[in-house]
């Protein structure tokens, strides 16, 4: 008897209930399952089972029977690889299908066009050529095009008509009519195999491009889960014991050593340290903690040993709630129907009605069946615009390509489309508007023993050169940037969370927070108002004491990103509402907001409340774009209509976002909005041109010009050349129009 625990990717889930279906199926119908839980957003199944009673294969079979697909790890690779492989397989599948289509349809198109335009000899009208065409068209129709038949069937069953229906119907009519012509010559004398094959291949090109740029949401959630340690040290009866995280209960006493992640949300009962909460809050400075303070699971303990009592475990921790919010937001995001599909849902039925009316009129008036049917086919063939397949992908390729050039990465076409509709831009403060790392802003010399501010900086930096603390690092970095060298110092000592001390030239130097000196009963009364003034500006103040004398003050703060002011002004000029969102208090927030001319401030927001604030704006009917960089921004990024991650941000933010601004500048936001607006305009123009020629020719195909005997024959009865010309012209117009976007 041995228990196995595995994580397996599962595909095919379309709603959150699917995940529950799978769990239930496994628990009820597969013997030996100890526990099974399926995560819809990450498409993962975590299953624990008795390996003597069941196997992974049986589990996979049960999942398949319920209508889903489990991706079993192959023997060489781990589970994570299995998911990657499944994604790679999907891309490969689409690529192979397109390649087959491109080769066969390419040859077919060239030969057929050459024949229609009489570029090649009379031999091309031999009967075997049509059979060769059939041979070329068949794999394209049923191998490359199979997805469209399947999609069209599903759509028609739901009583809607999308692009798939148009593609399947149009190409099938062209294909089967052509087969009919070859078997029953009375049906006509021209085959339309190339029309069918080209339609399918061009549209497959669009699908292939899409599958290559699909977002990787599963990986994002796994990264979040990896933040918490797998094991925790529990103290019971004065003994330390390492236990799996799942066994930690509320009220347990835990020990966290320096450098370790904090396993659960809890309250410190012993020890002083500072805790790096940057991955959760985005705040660059570690937060000092002492008994009575609360700590959050997933954050990292810096210097001191902490003893804490678990307050919230498992699903109740802040991190678990953030993970859940990301999952829900991703699950609830309704897929935006492609613009082409919307157009098709009106266009397809209209064309079908026109074709049927044409057929009926010709049959009744003309009295003959075959010419009436040829008219019907002609209308359907001319109406299936293959440029439609190019209209969206070429514009999106040009748009995303142009974006990549400017450091703007759109994850998919939906992101591009949604970005164009944005009305409100919500900016996270730290790391987005500001640089997200502390720099020295003020040097104030107090002691008359120091020559100038530079000497104050040199003194402090010499002590801090060995410091690991971000504040110390900021001081040392500032000194280095001024070209200062450090003095030698001895007896360096760090007092966790307060400051550092060392001996320079035989004199004891202290650099630290005001609170440290209060504790040492060193009076700071003379500079109290100065400290308060700096703190009111949102700065962190450090005191330098040299040989028991107050040497001076150094203020450190997160400063504005150099591009922020211009970027926000540009957003205002684009008639967008700009909102600043921050966990800081209103005073600090206002200080930054004033500098970048932002009027709307939402302050004092807890890390897990950011998505609620975005939702509130959405509930007011606004299309919201969220820009952020931290883990705490991830739920808001996911729930916003468009989430944009600043490229220097955390991986989780980058993977949850729809758009990535890889240059790390806010300017990218307005560029992205500009670009998406012009791309959407191009798509609309393309759709117009894609339809224009074909729509113009529908009445011609229906035979509206037939009664006018003075008009050339190729217009009275729709000639294949006319159809071919319309197709080429619409494709040419569409591609040229899209390329215009790239050059602009």
């Amino acid at each position, binding site marked *: 008897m041995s228990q196995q625990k595995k994580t397996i990717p599962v595909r*095919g*889930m*379309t*709603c959150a*209930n*699917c995940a529950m279906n799978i769990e*239930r199926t496994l628990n009820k119908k597969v013997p030996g399952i100890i526990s099974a839980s399926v995560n819809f957003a990450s498409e993962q199944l975590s299953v624990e089972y008795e390996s003597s009673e069941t196997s992974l294969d049986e589990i996979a079979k049960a999942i398949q029977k*319920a*209508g889903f697909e489990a991706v079993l790890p192959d023997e060489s690779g781990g589970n994570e690889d299995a998911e990657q492989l499944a994604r790679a397989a999907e891309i490969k599948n689409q690529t192979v299908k397109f390649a087959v289509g491109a080769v066969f349809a390419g040859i077919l198109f060239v030969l057929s066009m050459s024949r229609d335009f009489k570029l090649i000899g009379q031999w091309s009208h031999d009967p075997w050529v049509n059979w060769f065409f059939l041979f070329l068209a068949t794999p394209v129709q049923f191998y490359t095009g199979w997805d469209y038949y399947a999609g069209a069937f599903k759509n028609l069953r*739901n009583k809607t008509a999308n692009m798939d229906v148009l593609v399947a119907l149009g190409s099938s009519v062209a294909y089967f009519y052509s087969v009919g012509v070859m078997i029953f010559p009375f049906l006509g004398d021209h085959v339309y195999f190339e029309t069918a094959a080209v339609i399918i291949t061009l549209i497959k090109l669009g699908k292939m491009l899409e599958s290559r740029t699909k977002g990787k949401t599963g990986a994002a959630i796994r990264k979040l889960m990896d933040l918490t340690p797998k094991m925790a040290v529990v103290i019971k009866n004065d003994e330390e014991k390492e236990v799996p995280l799942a066994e930690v209960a509320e009220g347990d006493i835990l020990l966290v050593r320096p450098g370790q992640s904090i396993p659960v949300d809890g309250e410190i009962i012993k020890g002083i340290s500072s805790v790096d909460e940057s991955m959760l809050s985005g705040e660059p400075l570690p937060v000092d903690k002492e008994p009575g303070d609360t700590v959050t699971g997933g954050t990292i303990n810096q210097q001191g040993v902490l003893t804490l009592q678990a307050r919230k475990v498992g699903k109740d921790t802040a991190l678990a709630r953030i993970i859940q919010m990301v999952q829900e937001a991703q699950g609830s995001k309704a897929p935006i129907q492609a613009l082409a599909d919307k157009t098709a849902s009106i266009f397809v039925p209209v064309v079908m009605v026109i074709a049927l009316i044409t057929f009926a009129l010709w049959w009744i008036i003309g009295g003959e069946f075959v010419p009436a049917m040829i008219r019907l086919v002609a209308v359907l063939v001319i109406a299936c615009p293959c440029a439609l397949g190019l209209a969206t992908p070429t514009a999106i390729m040009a748009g995303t390509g142009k974006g990549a050039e400017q450091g703007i990465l759109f994850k998919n076409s939906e992101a591009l489309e949604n970005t164009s509709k944005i009305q409100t831009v919500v900016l996270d403060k730290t790391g987005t508007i500001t640089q997200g790392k502390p720099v020295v802003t003020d040097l104030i010399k107090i002691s008359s023993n120091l020559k100038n501010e530079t000497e104050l900086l040199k003194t402090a930096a010499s002590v801090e050169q060995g410091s690991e603390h971000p504040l110390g690092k900021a001081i040392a970095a500032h000194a280095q940037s001024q070209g200062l060298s450090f003095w030698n110092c001895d007896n360096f000592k760090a007092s966790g969370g307060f400051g550092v001390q060392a001996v320079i030239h035989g004199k004891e130097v202290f650099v630290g927070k005001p609170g440290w000196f209060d504790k040492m009963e060193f009076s700071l009364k003379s500079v109290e108002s100065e400290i308060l003034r700096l703190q009111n500006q949102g700065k962190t103040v450090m005191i330098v004491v040299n040989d028991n004398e107050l040497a001076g003050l150094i203020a450190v703060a997160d400063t504005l990103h150099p591009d922020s002011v211009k970027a926000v002004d540009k957003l205002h000029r684009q008639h967008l509402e700009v909102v600043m969102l921050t966990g800081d208090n209103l005073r600090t927030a206002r200080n930054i907001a004033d500098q970048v001319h932002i009027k709307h401030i939402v302050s004092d927001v807890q890390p897990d409340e950011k998505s609620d604030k975005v939702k509130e704006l959405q509930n007011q009917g606004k299309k919201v774009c969220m820009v952020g960089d931290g883990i705490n921004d991830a739920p808001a990024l996911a729930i916003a209509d468009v989430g944009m991650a600043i490229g220097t941000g955390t991986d989780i933010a980058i993977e949850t976002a729809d758009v990535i601004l890889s240059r790390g500048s806010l300017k990218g936001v307005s560029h992205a909005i500009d670009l998406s607006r012009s791309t959407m305009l191009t798509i609309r123009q393309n759709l117009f041109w894609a339809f224009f020629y074909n729509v113009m020719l529908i009445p011609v195909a229906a035979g509206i010009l037939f009664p006018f005997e003075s008009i050339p024959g190729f217009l009275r009865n729709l000639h294949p050349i006319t159809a071919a010309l319309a197709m080429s012209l619409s494709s040419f117009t569409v591609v040229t129009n899209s390329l215009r976007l790239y050059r602009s």
Partner: protein
Amino acid sequence: MEKQTFTIPNISCSHCTKAVENELLEMDGISSVYSDVETKSVTVQWDTPASLEKILAALEDINYPAAQ
């Protein structure tokens, strides 16, 4: 023979309808089940030993409770 249509708010995709149909068809006395994603409804025809209570309990059990 009894016949009734239930509204099930949890139905949100075609897999859901299948799950509901599979579950109910396994019960004794159920002669036909038809569920629809669009209307979030399921129409059931049954005879003893099935009963309204048993059907509602079964739906509740698989986390697709019928709306009251």
